[in-house]
């Protein structure tokens, strides 16, 4: 049949409400008709959306970590051992008046040992190990009003008389942000590639259905089915492939993530994974929308190319 190009008329893309049932039924029937191809398309969509979800969760967590690290970011200024307690306390007092300093707290070496002991867990007893000699210096914990001021402040403290050494989470935030950025780039690039593959597979899958239904399409055209009545089942087929793929990806991500979060809280408590439902639901909805979009794009490409009605 010679194609009549540009068949988009003012009839719009509507079908009668009473026909929505037929259209959806035909769409699902189409998926069933090419089981193997549908499974391939659905899996590809699932993989690409799994990647999207993975990147999403990773970045959300890194962002969260950066924020919490930043809020805890403080400078440890170790006091020269020649200083007495009173001199140390005096120094702490002076530092607290510097611009950019929020609070200071003076930690004696005995307190520092207890804190350190606590970090190693209840089993360890450092006091016993080190005996009466405590090698730790007294220190001043300095909190800045703004994380950005930390490097400058640290430099200043280093040059202050009475401070032997300054330590802070130098580069940690930067490293976290860099990692997040890298994952974001690599993930999005991968996502783009797999999305293209998913669209291609969906479009091929729809093309096969168009081919296997060509007899029906001929009949529909001759009895006077509107273009959109003929097209919609194929778009619905694509949409469903996308949605099935998303649901699969969501399932894997949901159980995978919760499993990981549980494992980390039990074994690596210092990596706090976000586990509130809001993030997961938000991600799920986005994945669902993206999956549906992939399906529609894939089927639309086939419908306009191979279904000139």
């Amino acid at each position, binding site marked *: *049949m*010679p194609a*009549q190009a*540009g*068949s*988009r*008329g*003012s*009839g719009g893309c509507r*079908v*009668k409400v*009473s*026909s929505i049932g*037929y259209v959806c039924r035909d769409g699902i029937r189409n998926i069933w008709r090419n089981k193997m191809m549908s499974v391939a398309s659905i899996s590809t969509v699932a993989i690409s959306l799994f990647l999207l979800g993975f990147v999403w969760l990773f970045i959300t967590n890194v962002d969260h970590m950066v924020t919490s690290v930043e809020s805890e970011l403080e400078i440890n200024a170790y006091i020269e051992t020649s200083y007495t307690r009173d001199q140390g306390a005096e120094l702490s007092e002076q530092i607290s008046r510097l611009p950019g300093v929020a609070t200071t707290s003076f930690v004696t070496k005995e307190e520092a040992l207890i804190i350190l002991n606590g970090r190693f867990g209840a089993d360890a007893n450092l006091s016993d190990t080190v005996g009466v000699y405590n090698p730790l210096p007294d220190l001043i914990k300095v909190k800045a009003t703004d994380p950005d001021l930390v490097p400058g402040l640290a430099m200043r403290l280093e040059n202050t008389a009475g401070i032997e050494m300054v330590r802070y989470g130098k580069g940690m935030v930067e490293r976290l942000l860099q990692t997040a950025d890298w994952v974001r780039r690599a993930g999005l690039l991968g996502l783009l590639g797999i999305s293209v593959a998913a669209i291609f597979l969906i479009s091929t899958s729809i093309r096969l259905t168009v081919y296997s239904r060509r*007899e*029906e399409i*001929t*009949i*529909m*055209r*001759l*009895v*006077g*089915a*509107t*273009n959109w*009545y*003929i097209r919609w089942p194929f778009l619905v087929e694509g949409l469903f492939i996308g949605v099935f793929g998303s649901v699969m990806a969501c399932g894997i991500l949901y159980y995978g993530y919760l499993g990981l979060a549980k494992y980390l809280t039990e074994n690596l408590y210092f990596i706090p994974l976000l586990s509130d439902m809001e993030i997961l639901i938000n991600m799920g909805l986005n994945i669902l929308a993206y999956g549906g979009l992939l399906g529609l794009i894939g089927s639309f490409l086939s419908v306009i190319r191979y279904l000139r009605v």
Partner: protein
Amino acid sequence: MIQFFNVSKIYAGEVKVTALKDVTMNIDKGEFVFLVGPSGAGKSTLTKLIIREEVASSGQVMAEGKNLARMKQWEIPFYRRNIGFVFQDFRLLMTRTVYENVAFAAEAVELTRSQIRQRLPMILEMMGLETKKNAYPHQLSGGQQQRLGIARAMVNNPTMIIADEPTGNLDPETSAEIMQIFQAINRRGTTVLIATHDKAMVDKLRKRVVQLREGFVVRDEKNGGYSPVVWDDRDGSHAGASREPRIGGMQSES
């Protein structure tokens, strides 16, 4: 109802094929018309122009006073709902039952469920298929399959039925039965246009005959026979020798 004014149709391709040349004719509402002529004479092109699957290269095809060439794309499906099309090879959906085949067409023109439930049994009964509604096409005889094809064409209650060689795959007896159905449909006021090679049928029914040859209408005869021969009476018996043909020495072929 359908009017052709100096219609020519040229298929442009590597080789230009002129399928219809300067055709002017009129099909009135309620008519029964046979379209005859050898393969390649332009019969199919003529039917395709009527259902607006093709557009005339020159001249005008009018339906109910509307120029089909100016019809907008989105209007075409709604126009086609007035025309039922019957194929030589039936074009049934083999994986669907008799009922589903007809329902498929009904759904395609977006009839509601209640309309379908109401109309289908009626049509199947009219075509004598009510007892076969759950059978699959391959379980039907050729005649039954074509009746199913007609049932499908009738589902939207069209004002015109176009059949392309509807008896081409059927034996004479079954063909006669199919022709009776077309006559019955015609008696209800539906216009019927049948493109055919079935000489016996055309000669027997004595309906209007439009004969095409190489794209030209070479004969348009009321109560005509398949070939331009002289008949001495109306009972269908052949007088014998062909006398003066109206236009040229037409060869019948079948």
